[in-house]
């Protein structure tokens, strides 16, 4: 697995938003992400539809389930 850049440049907490708001916000934030930076997203469920779009756009991601049941998704180029 590729190294995760240490520099979190964008934080998105979409845990209390209903679909497709989380997806919309993530897609809007992606173009702002520079190489070497990462986007950290907190989500109430695993965002499967987002993964396909990330792969299409050439981004890498890593998802971890947190203790409260929500998910942390790290996204970088």
């Amino acid at each position: 697995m590729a190294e995760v850049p240490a520099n979190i440049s964008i934080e998105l907490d979409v845990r209390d938003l209903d679909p497709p708001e989380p997806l919309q916000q993530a897609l809007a934030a992606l173009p702002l992400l520079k190489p070497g930076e990462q986007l950290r997203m907190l989500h109430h469920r695993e965002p499967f539809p987002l993964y396909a779009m990330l792969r299409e756009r050439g981004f890498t991601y890593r998802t971890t389930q947190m203790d409260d049941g929500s998910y942390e998704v790290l996204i970088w180029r």
Partner: protein
Amino acid sequence: MNMASLSLEQAPPITVPFRFFLTAPLFLLLAALALLAAGPAALESRWSQPLLGITHLFTLGFMSMVMTGAVLQLLPVLAGAQVPQPRLMAWAIHLPLFSGVLLLCGGLYFSTAIMVTLALPLLALAFAAFLVIAIYSLARAPARNASTRAILLALAALSLTIGLGLLLAAGIAGMLHLPMLPLAALHVGWGLLGWTTLLVIGVAYQVIPMFQLTQPYPHTVTRWLGGALFVLVLAWSCHLLLSEPAASRLALAAACGLAACLIAFAVITLRLQQKRRRKAPDITLQFWRVGLASLLAAIVLWLAGQVSATLANSTFYALALGMLFIIGFALSVIQGMLYKITSFLIWFHLQGKLPPGKSPHMKSIIQDHAARWHWRIHLASLPLCLASAMWPMPWIYAAGCALLLGGVLLLANLYRAWNIYLRAGAKAQ
């Protein structure tokens, strides 16, 4: 939570579900018009020919039409089950279903055997194609979860409902001599408690937590409820094979079990929704609440019928039970979910067509106030329907007008949404 990946890259073309969603409300309009035209005579008995036609406009024309389109959309998304040749399959199901419903309901309404006879092969073809394709796709699906299990049971219940329905239609057309009343009871039981309820439950497991930001359904519920419901409808069906008093005892025991399952589903869903994380107003949630309250009201009425033989033998009882279940429960939740799924699909498909940031916001695709007017009229139609079950004259006319207006508003809202898709899509070309 054991969620299948809601993988939208597997979604079929938008015209596949939308041909079902956009034509289904036409049958609501027809049902309301037929009710108004037939007048109080339609409600003289639950078996009146016009009422049989009207009921099937609701159940087959609207409910099954939407449910069929929704299953074709959901199988790939929920279970990763690819539907082969989706456009061709949609034609092969929709066209015979649409024309078959018109012929069947016309034949029942006007007591014209030839129309019922003509409807038989069309409906058989439509449902055979749908069942084969849906069961084949599900059987090959990589994902298995509570939703796909409930949907599979719903499809099994649908095949029984259709088989029984075809027998009944052949009986009405004079082709066969059959014990019509017990067969009709089975047909209604499998159609409403099997196909309709199981599909609603299977879909609810996914869409309630996802769209209303609730906790997932408890594991015990998703594990047992669908199977229990199916086995109980099966047990209830078997009472027809027994002689008294065993038959009545089995029927009552199974019905009590069914009532308990439905109460559990309604109460758990209402509680999940009550504790949802985002308290923003949501029209789908409002429709769900009316639907689940109607389901509970239907169970209370049924329980009252178990205590009072006078009530149970009245025409009001049979009519009100059917109205609460079909118009109150099924129509409410189906219309509520229809608003969510249509705006979501339009948003999603435009996302792929338009440059980033150009596709309309999902919430602007169906305006909340427009959907809310529809919800108000739908809510108002329920007491009017119940009043018409008690006093057909003059309430049937008020109920018919409310149902007609509700159908018009649904149709207008859906077509406006579809227009947004077409216009935005045309700009992208």
